[in-house]
């Protein structure tokens, strides 16, 4: 199960909406082995694409050096799908390289309605992806991490 606080949940959804129709991506870091998503880090989608995301290679190194220095790891790796459901694609599965992370998928396909509103429903789901096997998990949204 993924336990995430409301503010971080909201920040991920807001990022996904802001970057729509391009895919948004980022991570939430936490102390190694803690399974606590504490530090929200928005990343730039270097692919700038509605169908693909990739962290810029320089940003990626910077991020991992920072986490290394803080004894952190990526607890959540998130990205959005802007025209399809919030389920890992074949590409997502093939490229998932963090066996300890919760892979969060947000779909913004239904959240933009005619007239420019962005308050339609957003799908927010979490998965484990290990060795090509996808397992969906429950999400518990809490006011703050205890």
């Amino acid at each position, binding site marked *: 199960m993924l336990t995430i606080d409301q503010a971080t949940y909201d920040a991920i959804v807001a990022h996904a909406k802001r970057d729509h129709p391009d895919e948004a991506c980022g991570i939430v870091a936490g102390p190694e082995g803690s399974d606590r998503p504490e530090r929200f880090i928005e990343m730039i989608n270097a692919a700038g694409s509605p169908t*693909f995301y990739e962290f810029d290679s320089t940003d990626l190194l910077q991020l991992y050096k920072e986490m290394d220095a803080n004894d952190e790891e990526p607890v959540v790796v998130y990205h959005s799908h802007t025209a399809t459901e919030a389920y890992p*694609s074949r590409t997502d599965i093939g490229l998932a*390289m963090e066996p300890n992370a919760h892979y969060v998928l947000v779909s913004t396909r239904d959240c933009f309605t005619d007239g420019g509103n962005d308050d339609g429903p957003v799908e927010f789901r979490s998965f484990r992806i290990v060795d090509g096997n996808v397992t969906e998990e429950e999400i518990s949204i809490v006011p703050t991490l205890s």
Partner: protein
Amino acid sequence: MAIEVKIPTILRTYTAGEKAVSAEGKTLSALIDDLEANHSGIKERLIDNGDLRRFVNVYINDEDVRFIGGLDAELKDGDQVVVLPAVAGGC
């Protein structure tokens, strides 16, 4: 000649859980062969068809090797190499 190579979580199965290992080589290509000699199987995760895998990033002293010669990038004693899988995907 020793070069420290930082290993990402996903590849630590090849290094008995070690986060960093020591290796040798005058080029990245030679370094990867040396890694393979001590950590069998790791080369295939880094190289495909004679080139670095598209979604594996390798840095020498913080420079992405794609901009400094790829597998031919030169190494010297004390350099630090970091291997990081890309964080990427697509619908």
